[in-house]
């Protein structure tokens, strides 16, 4: 997809947000951006585009996982969470930051690419090297986990689920 030329600052901020979606850790995300920026700047300089930079961030993240450099936290299994059922989380709104920590990295990634970057599930599948069905599953699991957030629950429940079988 063609992207208008972005400033270096905008590219780095976009890369950071994506890295944060992958790692859910501020400093790990910053390190990822640094590593990715070093690579793309050397090779492309100001010709670097957002898809290229995000792809490099992803590659560095996957590489870090393979080398055991990045800690991955297994999300708490659903049955381990005290399940309020359909009731709101006691004490008020659940912290979204905490809820996002309960997601797998690939679930946060799918959500981020879909919600923030505006990618379709087909585009996400191509970007992440998987199938559209897998992307839909990840989005579905992520939404189910995030239903603990009262505001999100209201909005998710009131939305028309047009994803299944249809391209958005």
């Amino acid at each position, binding site marked *: 997809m063609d992207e208008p030329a972005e400033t270096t600052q905008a590219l780095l*901020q976009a890369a*950071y*947000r994506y890295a944060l979606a992958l790692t859910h850790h501020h400093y790990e995300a*910053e390190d990822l951006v640094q590593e990715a920026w070093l690579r793309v*700047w050397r090779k492309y300089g100001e010709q670097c585009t957002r898809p290229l930079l995000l792809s490099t961030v992803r590659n560095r993240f996957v590489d870090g996982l393979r080398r055991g450099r990045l800690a991955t936290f297994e999300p708490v299994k659903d049955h381990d969470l005290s399940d309020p059922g359909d009731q709101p989380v006691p004490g008020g709104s659940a912290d979204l*930051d905490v809820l996002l920590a309960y997601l797998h990295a690939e679930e946060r990634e799918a959500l981020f690419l879909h*919600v923030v970057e505006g990618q379709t599930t087909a585009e996400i599948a191509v970007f992440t090297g998987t199938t559209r069905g897998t992307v839909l599953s990840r989005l579905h699991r992520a939404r189910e986990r995030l239903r603990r*957030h009262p505001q*999100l629950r209201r909005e998710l429940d009131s939305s028309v689920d047009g994803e299944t079988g249809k391209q958005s």
Partner: protein
Amino acid sequence: MSRETEQPLRAYYLGQRLDETALSRIHENALLAETGRDRPRPRPVRKPALVVGLVLALLLGAGGLAWRVAVPDATAHIDAEVRTNYAKDLEPEVRADNFAELAAGLPRLGFALAPSTEEGPLTGWQVTGGRYCSLAGELAAQINLSDARGRQSLLYIVPLVEALQAVEPGVRRHAATDVHIWRDAQRLYVQAIPK
């Protein structure tokens, strides 16, 4: 899925930003790493920072950068980067109590990992572990140290590449930490010690 229903998520992520200091540091590291690489040099240049400054001046004049980036002073840059890394308090990847074990656990370093032969800076400090990191864009070792008082220090060792030749040895004192910089056997040593 209607994207409008995910407003809290969008707001959460769009609210996450790198501050100006981190932005500048990330870009400056890329510029510093670029100096000293294979590039034709019609005239000898003593200080990589001068080259970077000229490049920046050209880029700013052409409107190539969206925001003003100060010409990086190599020593100040390393000092700031080390203090930032110290504050991150990242877990070591390798647990070891000597340099030989540490070197064995960090095989990708590409340079010999050894304690400095200079007396003074490392006296009284015991190795407890280490991890890979980068310093001015170069792959470096970050080594965890502790002393008899239980203080935790971080030591960085990186090859003395061209981009780091301008880093001045000495001690830079700050409110919470002192940063000791010295050279030994074609390596740059930088140690952050809490007060």
